[in-house]
């Protein structure tokens, strides 16, 4: 390059392009700038080379780089703080969830849609899902404005804390709703069959079509909710499988299809464990329904539904029915986190040590949660939010937070407790009075039987009285 900077010569196209692209050395750059300062002609060439799109993109890159350098450190701290807050919420939320506070109303705001060809702002909610199936949590944080459904429970005031663990803390639309209690009857035990037929899931996934003209990418794993990629090229849409083979480019979709809505989320139980195989039914005002089964990670997604008011009903064997009202706005994806209450009467659950999922294929309740006595659990029963466990030595322990902490129940009976259960109080009273059982319905009670055969009942698991 230096050889071309003799007096009387101008830089050639190669040197100009190297300068414009920043591939020059410091010495070359200095020479070029010195020449440009004096030569209007070459300045014109350089500015003409920029072009409109390149100029804006270069400025944008420069701007982004500058902002990145300037805000890098605060952004890291802010991100760390958000993660910490999310962690606290994840820890606190399950214990504050009420099994009866499952009616939620979600109002979803219209998501921001980037103009075709215009890059989305980095770091925001517009981050693109580069590949579906990488994880249900990350894929759901993508293009849609996520509705943070906040509930107000009649029984639990603190349930209006933020949402379930999987929700992104940077969700776009923050919507508050009202929760009312709608708890249907309990379900009996669960069959041993796998709760999620693959065929059904795949059939349901077909419903996951474009929302506001965006191509939906099929998930490699049927269980994972599909990610949505904004501005996907037609070739991208073709990669989504034959179900989407007819997917049109973004602009065409915008014109031809009315904006549709969807609902997505994860089903968990009170302890925060995901519930796989739960049936999620979306029912509109006319009574027509769409159904999908939660995947192995508890996730579900129903898309391609018209905007409007819906009832979302979640059922799973061994759990109470969860029903909530949802208002779906056009082009919105409502994020809900149904929490299933433990079924009443005789239901029992097995909680694995990893608490990864609720195992529902066993009739007996064996909790691997260690009791304060460090003895094996003989049996456990639950009533409402209380979990009662009996260990080998006859020690009785009560937990009010789904087994996270235990409190020993002081024996008010003589002998050793050998079994525990739950019965309806009506039966007790009827028995006591010699009347026919079932004549009146009352509150369910804990019942224990001592080795001497005496039966004791308790409403709260702490205060016992002989039957």
């Amino acid at each position, binding site marked *: 390059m230096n050889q*071309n900077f003799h007096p009387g010569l*101008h830089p050639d*196209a190669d040197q100009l392009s190297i300068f414009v692209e920043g591939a020059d050395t410091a010495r070359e750059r200095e020479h070029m*700038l*010195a020449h440009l300062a004096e030569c209007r002609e070459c300045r014109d060439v*350089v500015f003409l080379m920029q072009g409109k799109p390149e100029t804006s993109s270069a400025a944008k890159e420069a701007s982004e780089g500058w902002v990145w350098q300037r805000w890098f450190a605060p952004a890291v701290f802010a991100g760390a703080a958000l993660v910490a807050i999310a962690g606290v919420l994840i820890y606190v939320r399950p214990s504050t969830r009420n099994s009866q506070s499952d009616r939620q109303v979600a109002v979803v705001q219209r998501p921001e849609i980037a103009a075709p060809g215009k890059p989305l702002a980095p770091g925001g909610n517009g981050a693109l899902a580069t590949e579906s199936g990488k994880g249900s949590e990350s894929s759901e944080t993508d293009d849609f404005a996520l509705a943070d459904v906040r509930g107000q429970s009649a029984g639990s005031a603190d349930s209006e804390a933020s949402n379930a663990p999987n929700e992104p803390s940077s969700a776009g639309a923050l919507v508050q709703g009202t929760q009312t209690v709608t708890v249907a009857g309990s379900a009996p035990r669960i069959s041993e069959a796998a709760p999620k037929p693959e065929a059904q899931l795949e059939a349901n996934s077909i419903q996951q079509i474009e929302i506001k003209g965006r191509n939906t990418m099929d998930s490699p794993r049927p269980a994972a909710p599909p990610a949505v990629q904004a501005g996907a090229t037609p070739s991208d849409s073709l990669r989504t499988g034959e179900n989407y083979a007819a997917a049109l480019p973004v602009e065409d979709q915008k014109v031809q299809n009315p904006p549709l809505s969807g609902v997505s989320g994860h089903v968990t139980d009170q302890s925060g464990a995901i519930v796989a195989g739960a049936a999620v039914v979306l029912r509109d005002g006319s009574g027509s329904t769409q159904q999908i089964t939660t995947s192995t990670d508890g996730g579900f997604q129903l898309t391609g539904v018209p905007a409007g008011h819906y009832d979302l009903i979640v059922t799973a064997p061994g759990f109470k029915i969860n029903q909530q009202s949802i208002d779906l706005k056009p082009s919105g994806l409502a994020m809900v986190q149904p929490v299933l209450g433990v079924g009443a009467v005789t239901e029992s659950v097995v909680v694995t040590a990893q608490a990864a999922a609720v195992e529902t294929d066993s009739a007996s309740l064996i909790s691997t949660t260690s009791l304060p006595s460090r003895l094996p659990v003989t049996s456990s029963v639950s009533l409402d939010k209380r979990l009662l466990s009996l260990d080998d030595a006859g020690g009785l322990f009560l937990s009010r937070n789904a087994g996270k902490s235990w409190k020993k129940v002081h024996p008010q009976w003589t002998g050793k407790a050998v079994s525990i259960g739950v019965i309806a109080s009506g039966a007790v009273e009827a028995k006591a009075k010699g009347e026919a059982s079932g004549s009146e319905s009352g509150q369910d009670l804990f019942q224990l039987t001592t080795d001497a055969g005496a039966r004791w009942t308790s409403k709260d698991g702490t205060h016992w009285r002989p039957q």
Partner: protein
Amino acid sequence: MATVDIPSAKLDEHRLQADTVATGSATSVGMALVPSKRLLSEILARELWEKAAAHLVELTEAEFAEAVEAIGAKDNFGLDPGVEASAKQREAYWRALHLEELAIARGCALGRAAAWQRFLAQYREPLTRIAVEMTGALSLGEELADSLYSELFGLVEREGKRLSPLFRYSGRGSLIGWLRAVLAQRRVNQYRKTSRESPLGDDIDPAAPAVETAGLEHVEHLRRSLEGAISTLSPDERFLLSAYYLDARTLQELSGVLRVHEATVSRKLKRATEHVRKELLKALMASGLSRRAAQETLGIDPRDVDINLRKLLQGPEDGTISIKEGRR
């Protein structure tokens, strides 16, 4: 100022001569730059040849090795003149080249049909689009692009050899960037040719002689001080002042060229003007003026300062930039 009108084609030819000397790969003159001792090992040459997919454009290993060696020798592998590059530095330099694009360009320059097919497939559409974007009109843009095609194809021959401008592509930048630069140069040439016929000169303000002859007491003194102040500026500051004040470029345009944020450009501009003002004040005070008188001198007439600045930044009138004068 001398304004010798040199036709654009002649100017390009002049450029070509200079660049051919610099590139030195296709002509006998250029071959002298290729070092007598082969610096590129056969293993690395083959690796680069394969990486460039040069076989797809019908380039032999020897041809490609000669090209990359000549490019490295021309630039002294990115080092200062006189510094000898180590083998590692040479290898890093060669590997950093846009090898595939270099192979296409070199293949086209040598008239290989396969190279032209690849070139047309990859660059025809963007080249036309860029030309239309630069000219602002479809017909003008297509005309500009077409004229460049014929030139790139190497219709000009000298001493029995094709002379394609693509020989001058070094592979240090992208090929599309190089094509963009070539188009921009031709567009500016074209524009200069037509604008020369317009009555308004764009460099020298007609009012300048009037100011100079106005007989203001301190103007000449101010001019000398300004010359000293401008000379203390760094090249990028001079470029910024020229582009911003003389060409009326926006901060966004400047930030695009310098690849810095607009705020940085703004700060640099402010710093440069403040520096000039301080230097001026200092020079005026050193010449015996009181501070107040110096400040008054600075504020005589801003247009006077602007006129002087234009002249200073735009270059001396002693003809050191001869080609530029000829193109005006």
